């Protein structure tokens, strides 16, 4: 029964492959031109591979029929499972490789690989893969997986092999391939030749590594700037986060609720909005500067533009993340350990110094590294507040879109940034692997956490109170700033900014969204709404594979999924335009590239949600289902998915929100048709239209707050609950 099902699935993919080859339009189509591409069907722009190969000028496409035939033989011939699987795998692998090879070898302007041109001559051309090409590639991939399953991979479970194959292929295509392209760009000069000397010269450039600032008034290299900023932010946000975590967990403070809300805010705040608010407070005509100038005659200055401003903005943005990491660690310390110390006659301060703090150290290291990586990846705040203080992320941006476009310089800077973040990421992984979870025992812990020693409590309160006031006033500015004429100058309340952005007219043609922000607003919602379910599905599937299946190369697989988390958005943005601007995967300028970018940027969130939830669900539930004769696919559908629903909702909304607030990667990828809200706002800031920018930002924050409240309600309503502990007082026994 099961075997015939597997044959049916393989047969389905084979049929899809033949349809993709013989009937579907092979190349990328611009459907906005209507059906004119299909006038000459099956030839012409919308023609199929078979037709173009036989009668058109693309004879190389015909070779694709050969691996398809191999796969067909594997399914039709009465072969045993093993040899049949081998033949199927062979067909799938050959087909996939040849499809990719011809795609990369022959581009828009002829041979992309010179030696092939020398061998075959002529100048064949082709465009990027379209529906037919993509479907056939997918069919080859899944036929390979079916073949491998027949050869006994993953206990012969075709569903698991296919899931692993699909996730690996997608990560390879949309994470590793673009990053590899960027790296290749760095060592290739504009003419396309390999130039290692040029690369060495560029990467050791004085503007990157110069140390002039130590000796005199000159500026240091951009790498040092970035490292300095990241280290300061890492230390600062960790200390602030620790103070917040201690106050939240170990004092009788009534502000715990406020702290919780403050920890949610950065998730729904577009990253540069805090920088914007700081300008409105401390800029030359900001509120604080004006007050100081008028009351105390302090001259207005531009001190906020540069290191102080970026540091302040990033501390505001990333302290809540450090707080969230540390509160978990603080809560994870078993009270029994502290109680044990107390019963051994240690005082509060001794207990804190000798027990609590040492147990916190792994958490502190982790929080530091996260702050460090986030600071280096941040793009919005340096863009808004940077002034003359250059960091890598903005330098990369200006190397791509600035006056002097220099892609290989951008690639070199991206490599420097990537190596810094990867280094930090490796250190963090090494820490995490060994330390963090050791304080959480599987057994229930009774007891009360020790109260903080007085001096620590006072210090923490002294840090937390003013910082909270500061943070609240920054968000107050964001909420209020869009509704006065001009902050710092004219406080007349007005709705003019909001109406410029979001005016709705009743015209002759009915409802008309006349506001300037509507286009980007709708595009953002649309892209985020498409990306969120894909992100959640891919992330949770990956989480399932990581927690519930064992297969060769699982460690590498896990590392690959985590890696896309460690790559800064600017690097992803640059790599996507470098990789997806040319065939065979020609995606720039489409909404699809934005969706893909969000899916693979935010997928680790889904993975983590899935892994966290699944590791709380007893594994024997899956095993019970398997021993009852359910296949892996059925088990996922009927047992795992219903139990994962909370994680699903969380992943959905989180990826939706992240897609709406992201700026660093998408700023490279937006087009006239698909402008995103964040890039639109950045444009308004650069044009000096602060009121409009802040009104738009406030609107976005409110929209996302509604989304968050939405999940809280949805998650709160789940009826699953945990299985109650077995109660031995049964009636019927």
């Amino acid at each position, binding site marked *: 029964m099961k075997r015939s099902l597997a044959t049916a699935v393989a047969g389905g993919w084979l049929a899809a492959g033949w349809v993709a080859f013989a009937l579907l339009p092979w190349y990328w189509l611009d459907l906005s031109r209507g059906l004119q591409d299909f006038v000459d069907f099956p030839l012409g722009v919308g023609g199929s591979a078979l037709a173009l190969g036989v009668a058109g000028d693309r004879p190389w496409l015909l070779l694709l029929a050969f691996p398809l035939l191999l796969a067909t033989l594997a399914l039709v011939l009465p072969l045993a499972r093993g040899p049949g699987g081998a033949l199927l795998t062979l067909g799938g692998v050959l087909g996939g490789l040849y499809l990719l090879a011809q795609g990369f070898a022959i581009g828009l302007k002829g041979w992309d690989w010179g030696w092939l041109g020398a061998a075959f001559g002529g100048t064949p051309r082709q465009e990027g893969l379209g529906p037919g090409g993509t479907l056939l590639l997918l069919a080859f991939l899944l036929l390979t997986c079916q073949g491998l399953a027949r050869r006994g991979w993953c206990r012969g479970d075709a569903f698991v092999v296919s899931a692993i194959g699909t996730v690996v292929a997608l990560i390879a295509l949309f994470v590793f391939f673009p990053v590899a392209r960027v790296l290749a760009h760095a060592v290739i000069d504009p003419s396309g030749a390999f130039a290692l000397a040029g690369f060495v010269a560029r990467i050791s450039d004085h503007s990157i590594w110069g140390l002039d600032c130590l000796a005199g008034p000159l500026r240091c290299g951009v790498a040092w700037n970035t490292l300095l900023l990241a280290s300061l932010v890492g230390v600062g946000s960790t200390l602030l986060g620790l103070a917040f975590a201690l106050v939240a967990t170990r004092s009788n403070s009534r502000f715990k609720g406020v702290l919780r809300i403050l920890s949610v805010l950065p998730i729904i705040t577009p990253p540069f909005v805090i920088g914007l608010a700081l300008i409105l407070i401390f800029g030359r005509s900001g509120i604080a500067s004006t007050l100081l100038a008028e009351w105390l005659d302090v001259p207005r200055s531009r001190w906020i533009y540069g290191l102080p401003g970026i540091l302040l903005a990033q501390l505001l943005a990333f302290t809540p993340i450090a707080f969230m990491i540390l509160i978990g660690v603080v809560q994870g310390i078993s009270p029994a350990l502290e109680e044990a110390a107390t019963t051994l006659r240690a005082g509060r301060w001794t207990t804190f110094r000798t027990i609590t703090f040492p147990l916190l150290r792994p958490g502190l290291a982790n929080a530091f590294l996260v702050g460090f990586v986030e600071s280096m990846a941040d793009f919005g705040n340096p863009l808004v507040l940077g002034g003359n203080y250059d960091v890598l992320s903005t330098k990369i941006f200006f190397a791509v879109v600035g006056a002097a476009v220099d892609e290989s310089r951008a690639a070199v800077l991206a490599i420097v940034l990537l190596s810094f973040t990867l280094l930090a990421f490796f250190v963090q992984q090494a820490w995490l692997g060994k330390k963090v979870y050791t304080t959480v025992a599987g057994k229930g812990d009774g007891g009360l956490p020790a109260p903080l020693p007085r001096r620590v409590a006072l210090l923490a309160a002294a840090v937390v109170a003013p910082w909270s006031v500061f943070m609240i006033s920054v968000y107050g500015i964001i909420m209020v700033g869009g509704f006065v004429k001009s902050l710092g100058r004219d406080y007349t309340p007005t709705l003019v900014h909001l109406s410029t952005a979001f005016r709705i007219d009743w015209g002759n043609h009915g409802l008309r969204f006349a506001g300037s922000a509507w286009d980007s607003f709708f595009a953002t919602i649309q892209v985020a709404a498409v990306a969120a379910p894909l992100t959640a599905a891919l992330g949770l599937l990956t989480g399932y594979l990581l927690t519930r299946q064992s297969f060769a190369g699982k460690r590498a697989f896990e590392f690959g999924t985590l890696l896309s988390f460690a790559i800064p958005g600017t690097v992803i943005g640059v790599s996507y335009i470098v990789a997806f601007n040319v065939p065979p995967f020609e995606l720039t300028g489409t909404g699809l590239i934005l969706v893909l970018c969000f899916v693979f940027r935010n997928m680790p969130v889904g993975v983590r949600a899935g892994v966290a939830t699944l590791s709380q669900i007893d594994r024997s*539930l899956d*095993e019970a289902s398997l*021993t009852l004769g359910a296949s892996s696919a059925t088990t996922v559908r009927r047992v795992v998915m219903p139990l994962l629903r909370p994680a699903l909702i969380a992943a959905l909304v989180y990826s939706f929100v992240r897609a709406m607030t992201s700026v660093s990667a998408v700023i490279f990828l937006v087009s006239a048709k698909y402008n995103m809200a964040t890039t639109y706002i950045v444009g308004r800031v650069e044009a000096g239209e602060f009121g409009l920018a802040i009104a738009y930002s406030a609107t976005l924050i409110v929209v996302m707050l509604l989304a968050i409240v939405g999940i809280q309600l949805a998650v709160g309503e789940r009826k699953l609950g945990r299985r109650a502990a077995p109660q031995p007082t049964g009636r019927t026994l």
Partner: protein
Amino acid sequence: MKTPHSGTRRSPAAAARASVEFRAVTKRYGSVMAVDAVSFTIEPGTLVTLLGPSGCGKTTTLRLIAGLEMATAGRILIGGEDVTARSATDRDVSMVFQSYALFPHMSVIENVAYGPSVQGVRKADAEAMAAETLALVGLRGLEQRSTSELSGGQQQRVAVARALVLEPQVLLFDEPLSNLDAKLRRRVREDIRDLQQRLNLTVAYVTHDQEEALAVSDRIIVMAHAQVAQEGSPRELYEAPASLFVAEFIGDANIVAAEVGAIVGAEATVRLADLELRLPHRGARPGAVRLAIRPDAISLAETGGLAGTILKASYLGKVREYTVRTAIGDLFVTVPGRAEALVPGRAVGVGFTADGIVVLPE
């Protein structure tokens, strides 16, 4: 492969039960040997216990039968058919998990009907089969409850019903009593044994509790260090342990040094301190041996036998337990609870009954 069920069922007792056979099965995790070249056979319609301390490989063995772990080497046969390469889905084996593993998002009846329904049985038929099986385990009337509303014993019965509903060739239990309190354990284990005999099921049962194993099993396989230490009926294991490990693990035993003298037929003269006993020699040669003495094979009297002193005493109602210091070491002794109390420090005479003493093969 599991056969799809129709609406009409075979009588459970008439269903064909299969044997389970391990032929030199090995399971390795990296460099760790979990099961080391283990061979045994479980006859159809018998209940066989895999008994051993934690980490001995008994649960891995059970999971190998289920197909939840794949053997590194060796062959596994169920009903004479080689299933070594088959996944859990494709083996006709059901399992009752230690944690019960009831699906928390399904009601009692949905849990039990899950097996038939994933086999393609129509919902109404699947639920009819489930209701019938629930009645069999005495849970009629609780079909619509949520699993979290049941007591531990009831949850356990749901887990058994869910495993039974497909009429598997082999039913597996992984420490099924460990989440129940002491009183309930005895009744549930009697229920399991009763069900197994009534339906003539082939059952493999994992436990670390030797008393539980003695009570329910047709045969017991004692495992230690990833290997089979001894296999036999409960009585064989208790009365003729093949090794020091088995003697200590099954029932309590005092291990003492002794001297084998003359061998006559199946019996030998064994010298224990200044006493002389006649015991089956079990292959021992004249010279130093070790004896396993059951605590109830030792009697305490005012005088006579081996001289000893009471070291510790505890009263457990049904029995009294003593630790007695003697020339051959400290002995653990149980006597009926109604016997007169002996206080620590008192001198006693220690006697032995031969049928509670075995010579341990070296």
